[in-house]
């Protein structure tokens, strides 16, 4: 019996349409659709793509819980040996959708999953720790190049074979530290690499320290009395009861909450869920994190032009850079659309 594969793709690769069709709901088709054809051909006759699920990226992004539930039902029916999503190349929303659904399948159905993305796809940082993400070029023009990488990994996953390192297999490093026996002991390797470093040659570390990218500063605002300002915080301020269940640390969600008509952050209305500090002071006075009281005064005095009628919030502590980046990318679009000219970001 051949091994069964279910393939997830978006509306574009499914041939339904581009951005204008990004809100289509999940649908399932028997057999191969779009990029699945080249995979099926390369996989040969012992493997079969039994079904293809197509979903609009916007529908997925805006209705995550429903989309995941619907797709999960479809996948279940086919009892696949491997679930493949994408590849999403450099498409951000598609990448996040592939990662989200693949993660859900892996966790809930305990089926091996595989996806593929360009390294700078925001979905890559969000999900590379959770699954195999094949490193792809930044556009679909590179599909042919990654087909063999996909097929090798699909076969290994289907048969439960050992997955080698990222360099050998062509996936994005998951950050899992795996032991092996090196040819030379560490002292010998250290001397070799140190001499390279001393000579100014290229050298190789076994354990790269985290690196941080930078962005060039935006130009200054000429006159704050003429602009619209929004407040963003990583201080975990949420409405009483935490309606969106933002986590106290390692947040996977952020919230946008209305402050229309409020002159101050009342402790009756707001609380903090942040797990990274002693909360007693902020619980009594949330203005300590969201300075609404003074910003309202300034708005009335004309010191600032206008205050946006909401604030954006999440918890900073332990939150992965991948998640923080994805949050930022998402709400920045809203800020832009709402005509926000500058942001005051507060952290504890």
């Amino acid at each position: 019996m051949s091994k069964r594969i279910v393939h997830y793709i978006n509306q574009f690769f499914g041939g339904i349409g581009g951005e204008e069709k990004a809100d289509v709901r999940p649908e399932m088709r028997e057999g191969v659709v779009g990029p699945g054809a080249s995979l099926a051909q390369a996989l040969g006759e012992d493997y079969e793509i039994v079904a293809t699920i197509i979903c609009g990226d916007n529908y997925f992004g805006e209705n995550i819980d429903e989309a995941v539930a619907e797709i999960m039902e479809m996948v279940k029916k086919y009892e696949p040996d491997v679930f493949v999503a994408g590849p999403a190349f450099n498409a951000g929303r598609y990448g996040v959708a592939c990662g989200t659904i693949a993660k859900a399948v892996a966790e809930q159905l305990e089926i091996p999953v595989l996806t593929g993305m360009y390294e700078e796809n925001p979905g890559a940082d969000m999900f590379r720790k959770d699954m195999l993400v094949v490193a792809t070029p930044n556009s679909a023009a590179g599909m042919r190049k990654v087909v063999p990488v996909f097929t090798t990994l699909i076969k290994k996953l289907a048969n439960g074979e050992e997955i080698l390192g990222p360099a050998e297999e062509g996936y994005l490093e998951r950050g899992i530290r795996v032991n092996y026996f090196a040819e030379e002991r560490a002292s010998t390797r250290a001397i070799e690499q140190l001499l390279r470093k001393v000579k100014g040659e290229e050298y190789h570390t076994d354990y790269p320290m985290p690196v941080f990218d930078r962005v060039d500063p935006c130009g200054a605002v000429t006159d704050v009395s003429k602009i619209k300002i929004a407040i963003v915080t990583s201080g975990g301020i949420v409405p009483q009861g935490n309606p969106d269940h933002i986590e106290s640390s390692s947040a996977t969600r952020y919230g946008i909450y209305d402050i229309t008509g409020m002159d101050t952050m009342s402790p009756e209305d707001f609380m903090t869920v942040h797990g990274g500090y002693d909360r007693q002071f902020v619980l009594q006075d949330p203005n300590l994190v969201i300075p609404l009281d003074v910003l309202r005064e300034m708005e009335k005095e004309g010191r600032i032009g206008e205050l946006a009628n909401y604030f954006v919030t999440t918890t900073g502590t332990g939150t992965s850079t991948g998640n923080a980046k994805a949050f930022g990318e998402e709400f920045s679009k809203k800020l832009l659309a709402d005509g926000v000219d500058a942001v005051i970001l507060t952290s504890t």
Partner: protein
Amino acid sequence: MKLELGKIFIKDLQFGGETRVDGSTLIVCKEDVEKLVMEDERFLKVSVEIAKPGESTRITPVKDVIEPRVKVSGNGGIFPGVISKVDEVGQGRTHALVGANVVTVGRIVGFQEGVIDMSGPAAAYCPFSKTFNLCVVVEPREGLETHAYEEAARLAGLKVATYLGKAGREVEPDEVAVYETKPLLEQVALYPELPRIGYVHMLQSQGLLHDTYYYGVDAKKFIPTFMYPQEIMDGAIVSGNCVAPCDKVTTFHHLNNPVIEDLFKRHGKDLNFIGVILTNENVFLADKERCSDMTAKLAEFMGLDGVIITEEGYGNPDTDLMMNCRKITRHGVKVALITDEFPGKDGKSQSLADSVPEADLLLSCGQGNAMLHFPAMDRVIGMLDYIESQIGGSAGCIAEDGSFDAELQIIIASTIANGYNHLAAKGY
């Protein structure tokens, strides 16, 4: 300073009437060893057993491992300030019984001592699975205070190793290695064209079961200092700690420091090995600042182009490691770090407890959280009573037949952070 190290390769270990080396066999008089250990009134009882590579034998709980050595000529004696009188060592000739070790066994405290398997999957991770081990299993008198017992066990191992070493005094070694380091100015002038490399050796020094001794001095009581690499080969440094079995630097590993050995292999060829800076790992943050300032100052003062830094233990020492790295780098000296990793259950967490951007060259000695199955063994030297509570073990991990699953951490020196092993970790 010049030391000739004569290596006598030992390929078998047997009990016999008189302690001697016969060809490549070390014959040990069991009674003499027992008598020697029992001279210390703090012990209630001792048993001496032999473990050989390939046997179905498990040794646990292990405290220290010591290679027998003897001073044939030159100043001082082995383990100065501890067994021999305080006197500078590192000159002349020393003989080592390579392939034989003394292993001290017994419960010191209920958690820190590790496991050596003489065969099976765990043997691949432990250097002492491949050596002939004379196991000295000690038991203290009732009510003996922990510090006193730790000291008694430490000394027992060193005494037995010194006693065995004497059997090699008159034996013609199979191989003689010569190690020479000249005083700073001469050494620098000897190979003016080669990069000047030093070694920053961090010694565990926090308290009970976390101490190391240099000429008998508790390492937390000294400030960073210069050491000729030859001194360490005569036992100037002895281990008094059982931090976690996997990254314990045993006295064997001090005698056979891999960084020093490997630096000498390239000494005069493509580097100029200038010497060793000894420093410590203290509890006080102010001490850490002070000592890392001083190592950086010494590295600069010695005119080094590059240093290798090794640490012992996880957590707190990572902070010393990073401070040393940052400050030495800022003094214009290039740095390579050697350490082991603890990335947690799924291998995905941060491997180290501290980090600085200057730590851009780090060589891994493997990760200690990986799980391994330890099959049952026919024979146990020591006792299995503590496996569940030993580091790397867990409640209920041991089966009735004596097999168990545990983290690599439980194996003595499996991820030792001085670079002795071939085990390494990479990103998957």
